[in-house]
């Protein structure tokens, strides 16, 4: 039996409201709020990046796991905002948590599902018997072009999961990945902002792959939506997860605990993983949890978990996702946001 041994989340404390962004560009805030169910999003401070958030989320996961980090045999970081193009986020993370030098590490990219990829690789190595514990992290400081629709949702956050065979809090029942070549959203090398295909990102991309992965894993595991307690989908906005849930036969209350985007924004590689940490924060022993991510390009990773008794022992050891989402936070105006996100730069020195 392989499963999650520890999990941790990190959300920066700065926020910006949809009205603040809309006001600058002369857009209609209501259409974002009512149409996409977006209210506000997290903003990383200038001294935060994918690596710093991954470290904090991972440290929390280690505390919940209650393990010696030297026993972590693999560290995978999935992001589309790795600070370096060449030099892995994983080495800084592995060093910071004390897993070096007996550790394998790799950085992953697959738009918004790089985080679940890392989780998949970590758990696979544990399953293969190669390592005792594996860490998979999804973290991003997503960027949206100024004035683009994405600017209202691109946010920052990190979620970390440690997999192992002992001290399990959520057993992995099944995994399934659904992948095709679908150019719905991309960023060319040396480009600063990504581009997307507008409405093409909906049915042929998000919905096709999540439905494909959702149906695929339920068939593989021989379960139906009624057998599942909670489901988490990738969250680019507040509407898509509810609609895809409906398409797959899920009810709103199954989706709600893991639906954070309206107040958090879309944390890209952290999106569904943070929905998972929020769900584990409230799940009870015996609950069955399904997570289906989506990464543009395109593909979906699906995992089916069953929560164990041990969740009650570890849940409160470190800050919960809701504590960070609803706790101490500071709202910034667009100018500060643009400065933090380097959308305005000073002259060359």
């Amino acid at each position: 039996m392989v499963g999650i041994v520890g999990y941790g989340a990190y959300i920066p404390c700065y926020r910006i409201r949809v009205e603040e962004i809309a006001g600058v560009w002369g857009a209609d805030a209501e259409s974002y709020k009512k149409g996409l169910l977006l209210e506000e999003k997290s903003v990383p401070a200038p001294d935060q990046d994918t690596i710093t958030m991954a470290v904090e989320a991972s440290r929390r996961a280690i505390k919940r796991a209650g393990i010696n980090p030297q026993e972590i045999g693999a560290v995978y970081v999935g992001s589309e905002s790795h600070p370096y193009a060449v030099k892995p986020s994983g080495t800084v993370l592995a060093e910071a948590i004390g897993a070096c030098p007996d550790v394998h590490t790799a950085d992953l990219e697959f738009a918004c599902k790089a985080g679940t990829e890392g989780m998949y690789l970590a758990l696979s190595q544990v399953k293969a018997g190669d390592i005792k514990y594996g860490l998979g992290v999804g973290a991003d400081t997503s960027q949206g072009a100024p004035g683009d629709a994405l600017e209202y949702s691109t946010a920052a956050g990190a979620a970390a999961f440690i997999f192992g065979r002992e001290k399990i809090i959520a057993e992995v029942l099944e995994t399934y990945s659904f992948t095709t070549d679908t150019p719905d959203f991309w960023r060319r090398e040396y480009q600063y902002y990504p581009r997307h295909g507008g409405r093409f990102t909906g049915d042929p991309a998000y919905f096709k792959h999540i439905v494909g992965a959702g149906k695929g894993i339920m068939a593989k595991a021989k379960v139906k939506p009624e057998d599942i307690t909670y489901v988490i989908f990738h969250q680019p906005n507040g509407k898509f997860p509810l609609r895809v849930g409906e398409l797959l036969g899920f009810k709103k209350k199954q989706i709600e605990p893991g639906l954070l985007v309206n107040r958090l924004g879309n944390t890209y590689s952290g999106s569904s993983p943070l929905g998972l940490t929020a769900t584990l924060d409230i799940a009870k022993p015996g609950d069955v949890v399904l997570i289906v991510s989506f990464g543009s390009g395109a593909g979906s990773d699906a995992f089916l978990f069953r929560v164990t008794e041990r969740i009650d022992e570890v849940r409160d050891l470190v800050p919960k996702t809701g504590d960070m989402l609803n706790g101490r936070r500071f709202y910034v105006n667009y100018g500060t946001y643009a400065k933090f996100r380097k959308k305005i730069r000073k002259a060359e020195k």
Partner: protein
Amino acid sequence: MPTPARYWREIPQRYRLEAAKCRRCGLILFPPRLICPQCQSREFEGVKLAEEGKVVTYTIIRVPPHQFEDQAPYAVGIVELDDGVKLMGQIVDCPFEELKTGLRVRIEFRKMMEEGEAGVIYYGYKFVPA
């Protein structure tokens, strides 16, 4: 500006706060040293610093050194950790009006600076309100 070597050498301290405890007199040294300044012993055991503490004193830097030009103004303080060790670090995620002596803080991993657009990124510890 630190070269990669100068930065890399301090990683155990900057990332993991590894310190040394004198076996003879118990003084905790951060960074670790070869000889205890209190009792001259050369025997140490490795320890990690406590993760939380309180602000002893603080200031807000408004005229920064050139490597920190883009970061000013920022708060820097001396924090006494719960194990008695005092260290200097920036205090972040805290509006300046909320800074005060005695504020409980915890250590967080943050970016210190970047060597321009193409150089190394330096990481280290900062303090956030606990």
